[in-house]
């Protein structure tokens, strides 16, 4: 059979008709030649030929691809049936569109973030290497991946052979200006070892990548990312070979990176060689952890054996530096997981949540189809009696659900285009957000989802409504048809499943929401209301002496404090709740030396101006704050946090003791005060913290201003920026926002997963309650006569109401019980995403169960009420 003929059936038929006509004419002529009357001749020719229609039908059949033909017929039939009940069809299509759309857009994000290989050469052999500490404290929040110290990286690279090459990347920030310091802007930068780009297989789009000789401490080569090249230099290739000024120092542009290269994120604007600009004393250290290492595995070596070489090197380094924080082990991570670290878990959980919603949507459509099946029982029975095979009937019904799902799938894909756009632009923590888009694979996924949904939603009702019992509908008294009972049972089972899944979703959402609320209301340990924050960083070139740095900072603080509406101003290297900000190890002079194998004490470091603590209302527990006298040569003072005092000075008064910080000019610092704890990030445990005087005039003095105001803090931002510009018009500021905004942004993941899971759960709840209502209304219609009889025999309205209500509530209650049990098991998976909330939080369970029972009661109430209002006489006449 050929497809061509299939589509040319009508033409072939017309031709055949002509041929037949020609035959008849021929025969008639012959008959007339034999001496017949013209009429008789035609009649005899007709008799001889027989039934021309039969010939045409035979040929038509012969030309038909029967599968396609029946499919077309099924489709036509299904479309007509659906069009006859537009309300049902639209609801079903909307439900499927919503579910398929949500699933597709989540899949789009998951694919781009977790599954798609990065556009590097042979990305399967790239692996990120981290140090790994074994002690419990480092691992309390999950397996630790510790950044790598520069000396460790150089030793790994020199002493192991399992990897083709290893490259190191470090974070940096620059103040980018023109030659005369004009147009200042803070740019995100990365330092990458010279072999990074060849290792990744990334060529320069213009110019070249770094040379080995440029990767040195005083190296001044720089590469621009495409976005900076386009934005600031208008895509003018003559900038390659020219100079730009970073922190007031001239750098030579050696190349521009390709447009697609947005690794590790799109915010990076310039790349410098790894060593370029590093303080020289840092490089030989094994305990300055600030780099990530990317390595390319040799094709003939397994990851395990390559890794074991590196681990051997690392363990030796650990043994040689017993007290210093040098990790014992090395931990590998794929490059995709490395970029997605914070979003992987939320993404997977969201994916599970939409899958649940999809399941509920399918069950709901199945439920609706079962209800329709009941109304069409007679039709199915008649078709069956006329000889339609069961398979034909099932196929017919499946076609209907397929049509619904296809329309829903098309709507869903459109919906997911918008949803994906929204997700990738709103969810700030997603890596490679720019590359998230719908493509062929995603469309294929949407098709697969659509077809499986159609099967799931169509098969159950189709099988149930075409069973042997269906024929019973033809019997005289159709109200006793056996199909009703089993179908009602099936609908109730589906409802129970639907409700159970909804309960699981609601419990998950409730836990995430509670945890988010806990995060929101966390006390970071200082005032956060009415506080404006902004960052600036003094370029080392221009502020070359401690006196100059201090003069600027003190001038600025004084001017800001004098502004109307300003209550207090704090300036520090970083503010509470705004990130890690670095840590250092120290020793306590008055304590006995450490035992071998005991780790050096470690604490976060902050530099603060004297007004920092009082402005942020961090309480003084002992001793004193800094004063204006703790400056320059008199600045060897330190204020410690309560956690540091508790951990390292248990049962003694730390004030007056001395700590020695090797990384800080290798000097001794006198503890002058103890202050309350602050959180470095909401949701993470408190860490011991050391505060040093900002007024020591150190040269690396980027920092954050916190300005506490009387009213809306954002209103003061322009006057503040004007004051800064008055002192130094070339100094850029960044991250102008309120402290609450800053802290809220750090909770992006928690907020996102909580709201999204909640919205999926609420949608599922709506679907489930609509399902409940539908099933009960259907059951009531089925039982109209029975109810009429009951009422005629004296059943009271209250009794009828209770009966119907209980009938509907039973599957709901079973579903709640099942769902709670399943929830208890499943929510353990999200334990790590919960903050200060137990997976078995009784409050959440009670709230979910009561919400569901309440909604279920409401959904059941309407049909039950209607049943109790029945007029018995009318009900008895109904059939």
């Amino acid at each position, binding site marked *: 059979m050929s497809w061509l003929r299939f589509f040319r059936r009508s033409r072939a038929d017309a031709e055949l008709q002509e041929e037949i006509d020609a035959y008849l004419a021929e025969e008639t002529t012959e008959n007339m030649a034999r001496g017949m009357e013209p009429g008789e001749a035609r009649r005899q020719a007709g008799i*001889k030929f027989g039934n021309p229609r039969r010939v045409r039908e035979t040929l038509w059949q012969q030309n038909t691809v029967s599968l396609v033909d029946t499919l077309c017929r099924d489709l036509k039939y299904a479309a007509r049936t659906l069009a006859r009940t537009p309300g049902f069809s639209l609801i079903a299509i909307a439900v499927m569109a919503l579910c398929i759309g949500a699933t597709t857009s989540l899949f789009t994000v998951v694919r781009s973030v977790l599954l798609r290989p990065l556009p590097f050469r042979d990305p399967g052999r790239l692996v990120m290497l981290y140090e790994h500490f074994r002690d419990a404290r480092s691992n309390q929040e999950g397996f630790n991946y510790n950044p790598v110290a520069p000396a460790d990286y150089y030793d790994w690279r020199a002493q192991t052979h399992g990897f083709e090459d290893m490259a190191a990347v470090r974070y940096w920030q620059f103040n980018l200006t023109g030659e005369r310091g004009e147009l200042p802007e803070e740019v995100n930068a990365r330092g990458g070892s010279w072999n990074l780009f060849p290792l990744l297989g990334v060529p320069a789009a213009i110019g070249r990548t770094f040379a080995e000789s440029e990767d040195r401490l005083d190296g001044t080569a720089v590469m621009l990312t495409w976005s900076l090249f386009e934005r600031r230099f208008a895509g003018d290739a003559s900038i390659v070979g020219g100079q730009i000024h970073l922190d007031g120092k001239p750098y030579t542009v050696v190349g521009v990176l390709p447009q697609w290269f947005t690794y590790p994120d799109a915010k990076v604007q310039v790349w410098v060689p790894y060593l370029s600009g590093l303080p020289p004393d840092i490089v030989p250290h094994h305990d300055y952890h600030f780099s990530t290492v990317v390595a390319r595995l040799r094709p003939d070596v397994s990851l395990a054996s390559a890794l074991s070489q590196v681990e051997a090197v690392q363990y030796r380094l650990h043994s040689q530096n017993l007290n210093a924080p040098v990790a014992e082990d090395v931990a590998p991570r794929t490059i995709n997981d490395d970029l997605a670290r914070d979003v992987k878990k939320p993404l997977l959980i969201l994916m599970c949540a939409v899958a649940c919603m999809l399941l509920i949507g399918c069950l709901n459509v199945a439920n609706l189809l079962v209800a329709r099946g009941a109304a069409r029982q007679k039709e199915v029975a008649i078709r069956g009696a006329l000889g339609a095979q069961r398979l034909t009937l099932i196929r017919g019904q499946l076609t209907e659900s397929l049509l619904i799902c296809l329309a829903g799938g098309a709507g869903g894909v459109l919906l997911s285009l918008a949803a994906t756009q929204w997700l990738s632009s709103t969810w700030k923590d997603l890596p490679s957000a720019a590359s998230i888009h719908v493509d062929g694979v995603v469309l294929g996924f949407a098709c697969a989802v659509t077809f499986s949904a159609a099967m799931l939603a169509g098969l159950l009702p189709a099988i149930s409504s075409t069973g042997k019992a269906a024929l019973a509908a033809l019997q005289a008294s159709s109200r006793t048809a056996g199909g009703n009972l089993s179908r009602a049972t099936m609908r109730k089972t589906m409802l129970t499943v639907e409700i159970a899944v909804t309960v699981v979703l609601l419990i998950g959402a409730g836990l995430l929401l509670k945890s988010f609320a806990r995060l929101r209301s966390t006390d970071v340990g200082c005032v956060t209301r009415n506080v404006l924050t902004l960052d600036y960083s003094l370029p080392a070139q221009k502020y070359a002496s401690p006196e100059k740095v201090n003069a600027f900072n003190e001038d600025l603080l004084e001017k800001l404090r004098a502004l109307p509406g300003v209550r207090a101003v704090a300036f520090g290297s970083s503010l509470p709740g705004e990130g890690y900000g670095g840590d250092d190890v120290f020793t306590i002079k008055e304590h006995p030396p450490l035992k071998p194998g005991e780790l050096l004490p470690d604490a976060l470091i902050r530099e603060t101006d004297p007004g920092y603590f009082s402005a942020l209302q961090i309480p003084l527990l002992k001793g004193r704050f800094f004063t204006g006298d703790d400056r320059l040569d008199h600045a060897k003072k330190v204020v410690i946090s309560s956690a540091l005092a508790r951990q390292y000075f248990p049962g003694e008064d730390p004030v007056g003791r001395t700590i020695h910080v090797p990384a800080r000019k290798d000097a001794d610092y006198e503890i002058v005060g103890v202050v309350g704890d602050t959180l470095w990030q909401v949701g993470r445990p408190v860490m011991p913290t050391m505060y040093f005087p900002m007024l020591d005039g150190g040269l690396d003095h980027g920092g954050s201003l916190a300005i506490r105001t009387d009213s809306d803090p954002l209103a003061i931002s322009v006057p503040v920026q004007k004051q800064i510009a008055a002192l130094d018009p070339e100094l850029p500021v960044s991250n102008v926002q309120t402290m609450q905004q800053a802290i809220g942004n750090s909770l992006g993941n928690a907020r996102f997963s909580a709201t999204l899971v909640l919205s999926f759960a609420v949608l599922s709840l709506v679907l489930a309650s609509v399902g409940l209502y539908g099933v009960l209304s259907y059951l009531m219609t089925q039982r109209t006569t029975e109810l009429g009889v009951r009422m005629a025999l004296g059943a009271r309205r209250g009794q009828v109401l209770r009966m119907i209500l209980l009938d509907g509530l039973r599957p709901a209650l079973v579903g709640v019980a099942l769902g709670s049990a399943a929830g208890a098991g499943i929510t353990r998976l999200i334990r790590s995403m919960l903050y200060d909330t137990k997976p078995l939080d009784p409050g959440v369970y009670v709230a979910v169960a009561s919400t569901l029972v309440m909604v279920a009661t409401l959904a059941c109430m309407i049909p039950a009420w209607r049943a109790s209002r029945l007029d018995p006489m009318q009900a008895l006449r109904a059939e």
Partner: protein
Amino acid sequence: MAKHDKTDGEMLKGTLDMMILRTLVAGDAHGHTVAKVIERTSEDVLEVEQGSLYPALHRLEDRGWVSSYWGVSENNRKAKFYRLTVAGRKQLVLETSRWRQMIRAIGLVMGEELMADGGTR
């Protein structure tokens, strides 16, 4: 497919195609001629049922054994003519030899003419 009634002139399955091809060896012909030639040549023993002639012609055309064109009949009427193709000729040779083998085989099995009383002549 509709079932055909049995007629006296019913042909062995598959032989119609072969006979059509054989008829066309003499030259191009339209459906009416093909039917007439078969009937005449078989001394009116075989009656070509029109219900199977045209589907058979189309089937042969699909397989590439005959080709067709619209022409003018001897009575000056527009008619669809069929022509034997090279592939059709090969097929005819093949089928003819198969047919002869079959006739011989059946002849061997049936032996001599059977008398009404069960004996052979």
